């Protein structure tokens, strides 16, 4: 290495630093600031104390320490923050990334090995960052005869649809990116896009193995969508609403999994099939059809597809929690915010600071989020488990399962739900409220 890198010269180092600072300032002032102003036309800015909050105003107010926390709090309650950070893309991507790492370690322990170990000081915790950097730096190879527009767009569509799906899941009371009244139907509509995207990407690659993989993915996803929808009909019948937030609110005293275990099992199996996880990973069956419909994707396109897959995993696990496990309901275990900090302020040594507007998030919301995360992580772990235990299923057995057995079980579940409703046990005016 010492023969390739030149010797260190302080003047050259300072010159390169000033170079970087120059370019950053230039781009920021010529490009960045106007961009921010243009975007701000489309974001609703909060009005605080009768004044519109512009960035300059925000900066001056932040200089006054008493105003810091209220400004941040008002920013947190905007739509923008919800989409980007908290129940939206940032939160989902963080959970997805943690899932990838946990999956590798978990599987490794089942298989008597260690998993990622070297990247990062503690048990390889920075492995994902290393993988992400690697994928970004790889060359993206497009096959010569591929259908280029569709091929480029397919991974972006995939991530977009997965993120749209994740945006429908409520995390805590009132904290959801979009809350349509027909939330569950919106979920079904979004899920219905995935087979189309898979077939588009496999067809545009114009090669034999992705073609076979795409056809298998199509068979698999379509034959498992019907049991997925049917198994959730029971819940809709009993709650009378399609809105996901209301479904969670109806589970305050009991969880739906107690009354509809068959529906939960059918839904869980169809989740495994929609996510293409083992034992249903036919579309990417490595030993038979190289890598299925993912064969021709390389570099960051593959990274995007992996991100989309794990976002989908988080979204499905979140959906399972919301529908069957009671969402964010749970006993209050988050400690309440100490009230004397609001009245008396924080005392450190001789200095007492009064910080206005302090509880950033209230206790209900934090408790709800904690329970939601615990339950979702539990569901994710159970989804990860079959990968270490089962081999891959064959296509005709898969279709047999999807079309005969699961639909039969879903209908039994619907009859149980109808029975419970008409016997007056559940639902409006029932014995158990």
């Amino acid at each position, binding site marked *: 290495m010492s023969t390739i890198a030149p010797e260190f010269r302080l003047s050259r180092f300072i010159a390169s630093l000033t170079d970087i600072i120059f370019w950053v300032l230039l781009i920021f002032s010529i490009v960045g600031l106007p961009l921010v102003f243009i975007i701000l036309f489309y974001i609703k800015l909060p009005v605080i104390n009768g004044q519109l909050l512009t960035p300059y105003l925000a900066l001056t107010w932040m200089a006054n320490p008493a105003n810091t926390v209220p400004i941040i709090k008002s920013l947190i309650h905007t739509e923008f923050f919800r989409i980007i950070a908290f129940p939206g893309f940032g939160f989902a991507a963080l959970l997805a990334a943690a899932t990838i790492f946990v999956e590798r370690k978990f*599987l490794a322990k*089942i*298989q*008597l*090995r260690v998993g990622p170990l070297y990247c990062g000081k503690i048990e390889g915790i920075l492995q994902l960052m290393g993988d992400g950097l690697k994928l970004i730096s790889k060359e993206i190879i497009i096959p010569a005869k591929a259908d280029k527009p569709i091929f480029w767009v397919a991974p972006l569509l995939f991530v977009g649809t997965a993120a749209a799906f994740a945006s429908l899941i409520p995390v805590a009371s009132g904290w959801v990116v979009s809350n349509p009244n027909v939330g569950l139907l919106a979920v079904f509509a979004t899920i219905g896009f995935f087979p189309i995207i898979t077939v588009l990407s496999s067809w545009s690659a114009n090669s*034999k193995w992705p073609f076979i993989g795409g056809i298998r993915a199509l068979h698999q996803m379509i034959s498992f969508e019907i049991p997925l929808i049917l198994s959730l009909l029971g819940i809709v019948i009993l709650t009378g609403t399609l809105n996901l937030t209301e479904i969670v609110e109806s589970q305050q005293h009991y969880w739906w999994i107690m009354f509809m275990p068959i529906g939960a099992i059918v839904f869980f199996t169809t989740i495994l099939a929609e996510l293409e996880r*083992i*034992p249903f*990973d036919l579309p990417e*069956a*490595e*030993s*038979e059809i*190289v890598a299925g419909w993912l064969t021709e994707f390389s570099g960051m396109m593959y990274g995007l597809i992996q991100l989309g897959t794990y976002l989908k995993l988080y979204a499905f696990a979140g959906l399972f929690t919301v529908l069957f496990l009671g969402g964010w309901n749970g006993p209050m275990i988050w400690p309440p915010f100490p009230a004397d900090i609001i009245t008396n302020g924080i005392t450190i040594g001789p200095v007492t600071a009064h910080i206005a507007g302090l509880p950033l998030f209230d206790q209900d919301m934090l408790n709800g989020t904690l329970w939601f995360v615990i339950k979702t992580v539990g569901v994710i772990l159970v989804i990860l488990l079959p*990968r*270490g*235990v*089962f*081999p*891959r*299923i*064959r*296509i*005709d*057995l898969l279709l047999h399962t999807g079309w005969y057995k699961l639909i039969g079980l879903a209908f039994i579940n619907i009859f149980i739900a109808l029975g419970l409703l008409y016997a007056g046990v559940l639902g409006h005016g029932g014995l158990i409220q």
Partner: protein
Amino acid sequence: MTTQLPPGIQLETIDDRIMTLNVGPQHPGSGHMRLIIKVDGDYIVSCDPDPGYVHRGEEKMAEYRNYIQNIPHLERPVIHDSCNILYPYCLAVEDLLGIEVPERAKYIRVIASELNRCIYTLYWLAIYGIFLGHSTMFMWPAGDRELFIDLLEAMSGARVTHAYFVPGGVRNDLPANFEERCLRQVNYFEKRIKEYEAIFYQNPVLKQRTEGTGILSRMDAIRLGTTGSVLRASGVDFDLRKKEPYDVYENLDFETQVMKEGDSYARSRIPYLEMFESCRIIKDALRKMPKSGSVRTKLKPNPKGGNDESYRRVESGRGSLGFHVISNNRPEPYRVKISVGSFRNLICIPYLLKGEKLGNMPSVYWSLNYWPVEADR
């Protein structure tokens, strides 16, 4: 076309319905050989195996080297089962040169052969698991192999391609404390492989995929001349260690494992049951081995066989392996013909895959215990 085609060249008609797939050498599910499969939808219409990608001409090379120089290259067809492929060569050359092998060497040879059989079977099981998509079944046998590879490394100095057997015995004696170490590892190994039962052989998805597929009846197995675990899974009780015992197998007690169904599940189970028998043999041999003695009969420099020939065979991990060695008063053999178990089982591949579903192709093909490198020699 009215011109006469050269012998063996065929014309092929192009059919709209039938797709030709190349399960080729660069395919994660094929090993080092090519299968030209014609599919009609999901059903395989015909299958044409195309081995020969790893053909190195072992038999031709053997004619240019003398009896001792032949040992390192003749073990290359199966590098991790190298003791079993050198075994019949050493027996045949000992016949030709008229050498008596000392008793302790015979026991060491039996122990090394059984250890190698377990190593090969675990490798084959690992790849069987990964062909079916079962990654845990790939990791566990690959890790458990290390127990025995360590033992063989202590014996011979190499993890694979041991070059341990020579005509006249074995190359060197066992290291000190080998017997206790071997016994301890074999006991631990038996506990480990009992766990495969629950995760693999009783796994409902595996049973659905392999039971009833690729059925080879008893008459067909005999007529096709199959050998090894394929034969024993179809109900024929034939094991060379019992029928034609070589070295000290007649003093050791073990059983032959036979199953009657002849489907892929039975073929995948027989080598696993035979691993238990191998552990029995190793423990028995360790008990009965003479504690000291020479392990090698010294050969004269540049030994020559007479105008003679010898055919000896041995039960290896894949089936019976035979060596036909012809000598003619020269230090090099005149002709060495190797008859390997994998090549004899090759005929089952087109026979069984015809009419099968494409999804069953990995489970049937790999259950035939076919090692492509060995079949090509």
